[in-house]
C-alpha cells in the first residue's frame, strides 16, 4: 500500500430514498446518513454491519449508481460530486476506474449470455479493443486471471458452481482495468472451503494489479482477514472505524463490542468461555430512526443525552474513530 495517498473519499454522504408512507404521506428511508471516510490507494477498507444498515447503499452511492442526497465524493483528487457546490461530473470516464462485484453469483449474471460475452460486455461498452481477435484474447486472459480457462468462454452461467460464477463476476469487473472495486458481499453466498479460494484470489489480484477495495460483508472474520481497516455501520451511520486488528481487539463503541461478542467462534474452548453481550430487541426502522444516537434503543449505556444529541464521529486515538457520548463508561 502506498502510504497516505487517498484514492477515494466521501464526506457527509447522505442517501435518502422515497418510501410510500401511510395515507400517501411523503416519507424517507434514511439509508445512509452523514457518513465520511476515505480509502488509501492499494488499501482494503472493510465495511460491516447488520442487514439493512446501509453498506450496499454506501458502496453504490460512492460509484454514483445512486445520486447522493447530500455530501461530497472525491476520487483521485477530483471532486465527482458536491451537493453544496453544485458539482456533478460526467461519470463515464470514471466507470472504467470504479467497478463493483455483487453478492449473489446467481442473480448477477445474465443466464442467456455466454461467459465470454458477459466478460466481454464492458470491453465493448468502453471500446477497449480494435478487433475480434484482440477481444477474444483479452477475454481469455481475464478468465485465466481468475482461475478459469478458455474452454469456459462458450458456456452459460447455469453450468457453473457458485464459486465459479463469482470468478466470472470478478473477471467482468477486471475487464476494464479498474483501480477501485466495491466488493459487495462477494463471498457470503459461498461455502467456507470455496470462500477461502475466492478470498485468496481477491488478495492475489490486489497485489498483482495494485487494486483498492471497499470490501462489504457481514462476516467479521472474513472482513478482518482481508481488510487493512474496518468501518462498522449501524442504521445508516458509521459508528466506528479503525485498523482491523485494533477494531477486533480494542473496540470502543458499544455496538461494535456486542457485534464482536456475537460472532460464533469456531473453537469449542473459546466458544464455551465466550461471554456474549446481548442486545435487546431488533433494529428500528430507517424511516423513523431514533432521535439522537440511533443505537440508543438497544444500547445498555443510553441516557437522556443520547436521545437528544447525535454523537459526533471523533478520532479517539490516532486513526481510531468512534461516535458515542459515553466512551469513558463503555466496558
Amino acid at each position, binding site marked *: 500500500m502506498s502510504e497516505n495517498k487517498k484514492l477515494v473519499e466521501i464526506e457527509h454522504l447522505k442517501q435518502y430514498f422515497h418510501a410510500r408512507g401511510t395515507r400517501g404521506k411523503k416519507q424517507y428511508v434514511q439509508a445512509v446518513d452523514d457518513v465520511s471516510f476515505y480509502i488509501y490507494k492499494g488499501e482494503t477498507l472493510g465495511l460491516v454491519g*447488520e*442487514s439493512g444498515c446501509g453498506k450496499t447503499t454506501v458502496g453504490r452511492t460512492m460509484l454514483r449508481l445512486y445520486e447522493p442526497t447530500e455530501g461530497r465524493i472525491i476520487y483521485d483528487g477530483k471532486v465527482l460530486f458536491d451537493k453544496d457546490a453544485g458539482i456533478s461530473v460526467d461519470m463515464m470516464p470514471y466507470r472504467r476506474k470504479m467497478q463493483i462485484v455483487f453478492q449473489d453469483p446467481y442473480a448477477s449474471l445474465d443466464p442467456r449470455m455466454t461467459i465470454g460475452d458477459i466478460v466481454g460486455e464492458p470491453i465493448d461498452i468502453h471500446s477497449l479493443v480494435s478487433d475480434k481477435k484482440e477481444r477474444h484474447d483479452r477475454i481469455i486472459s481475464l478468465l485465466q486471471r481468475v482461475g478459469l480457462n478458455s474452454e469456459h468462454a462458450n458456456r452459460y452461467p447455469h453450468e457453473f*458452481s457458485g*464459486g*465459479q460464477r463469482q470468478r466470472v463476476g470478478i473477471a467482468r469487473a477486471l475487464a476494464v482495468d479498474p483501480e477501485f472495486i466495491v466488493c459487495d458481499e462477494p463471498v457470503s453466498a459461498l*461455502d*467456507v*472451503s*470455496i*470462500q*477461502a*479460494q475466492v*478470498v*485468496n484470489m481477491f*488478495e492475489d489480484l490486489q497485489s498483482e494489479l495494485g487494486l483498492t477495495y471497499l470490501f462489504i460483508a*457481514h462476516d*467479521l*472474520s*472474513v472482513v*478482518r*482477514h*482481508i481488510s487493512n481497516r474496518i468501518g462498522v455501520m449501524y442504521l445508516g451511520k458509521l459508528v466506528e472505524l479503525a485498523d482491523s*486488528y485494533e477494531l*477486533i*481487539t480494542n473496540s470502543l463503541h458499544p455496538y461494535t463490542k*456486542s*457485534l464482536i*461478542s*456475537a*460472532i*460464533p*467462534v*469456531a*473453537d*469449542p*474452548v*473459546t*466458544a*464455551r468461555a*465466550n461471554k*456474549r453481550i*446481548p*442486545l435487546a430487541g*431488533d*433494529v428500528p426502522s430507517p424511516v423513523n430512526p431514533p432521535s439522537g444516537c440511533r443505537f440508543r434503543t438497544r444500547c445498555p449505556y443510553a441516557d437522556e443525552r443520547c436521545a437528544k444529541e447525535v454523537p459526533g464521529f471523533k478520532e479517539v486515538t490516532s486513526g481510531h474513530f468512534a461516535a458515542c457520548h459515553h466512551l469513558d463508561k463503555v466496558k
Partner: protein
Amino acid sequence: MKEKLLEIKDEYLSFFTPAGEIKALNGVSFSMEEGEVLGIVGESGSGKSVTAYSVMGLTAFPGRLVSGTIRFNGHEIHKMTEKDFRKIRGNEVSIIFQDPMTSLNPVYTIGNQIEEVIKLHTDKTAKQAHDRARELLELVGINEPDKRLKQYPHELSGGMRQRVMIAIALACEPKLLIADEPTTALDVTIQAQILELMQELRKKLGMSIIMITHDLGVVASMCEKIAVMYAGHIVEYGTTDEVFYKPSHEYTKGLINSIPKLNTEETERLVPIEGQPVDLMNPPAGCPFAPRCSKCMKICLRQMPPKTQLSETHYSYCWLRQKEEAQKGATEE
C-alpha cells in the same frame, strides 16, 4: 446401554429425477441418545438436510429410501407411510427451517398457526389451545404475546418469526428438534439471541437437537457431537472437541483450515480446499473426497476407505487413518 432415541443404519437414499439418479445419501449410519445435541456440518449439497428430513418422511417423491433402516423413538421409520408420519411430525419430531417466512402461512395470524398445531395433536379445547399458544410465545421470549398472537407473519421481524417457528416446533414438546440452518438468514446479533434461546429451551425441556449448519462456529458453541458430511457420506463423527482438536479426515481438516481466524495479529493466507464439490449424479469411485484431497493415494481413487474407530466416540473414513492404525499395530506387536 441407554436406549437410543434415533438410530440410522446404512441409509442409501436417492432422488430419481428426469436427468438421472442423484445419490444423496450413500450409506449413512449414526445414532443419538435422548437429550443429545448433534451438529451436522458439510458443504451445500452434501446431504445434511436429506439425512434429517428422512427421519420425518420429508424426502418423498422423487426421493426414495433405497436401503437401510431408521429407528426413532420406537418407530420403524423405514416402514412408515405418509399417514403414519403425520402422527409423529410436529408431535414427536419437529423441524425449523432457515427461512421462517416460507414456512409460516402469510394469510393466518401467528395465533391461528400455533393453535392449529396444538389442536392437531392434542384434544385441547380452543380456549386451552389459545392459552398454550400464549404460554409458548412467552417461552420463546416474545414480549406482548397477546398482541403478537393477533399479528400476521409479515408484521414481525426475521428474528421474531424464527422465535415463532420455534414456538410452533415446541408446541407438543417433541423428543427431537431438527434445526436446519435456523440462523443462516439472521444477523449475528439476532443469531446469538436465537442460539441462546435454543440452549435454554433444551435445558428446560430436555429434547434432543439435530443442528444442521455450514457454520463451524455455530456447532462449536451448541453441540456435543458432530457429524461431518461429504457427498452423502458421514466422513467423520465425534465429540465436538475430538472433531475440532483431532480432526481425522482430510476434508474436516480442510474445512477447519479454511476459516479465517479473528483475533490473530498477523493474518495468514487462507488454505482453501481446491477443486469443486462432487457431482452426485456421477460420484467418484473410492473416497468421495479424493479428487480434492492433497494427500490422495492410489488406493483412495479405487476403494472407499473403511471405518477407523479412533475412540469410543470418534471415527472417520480415511485411508491415512487405516495406515496409521496398521503401523501402530505393527509396532505394538
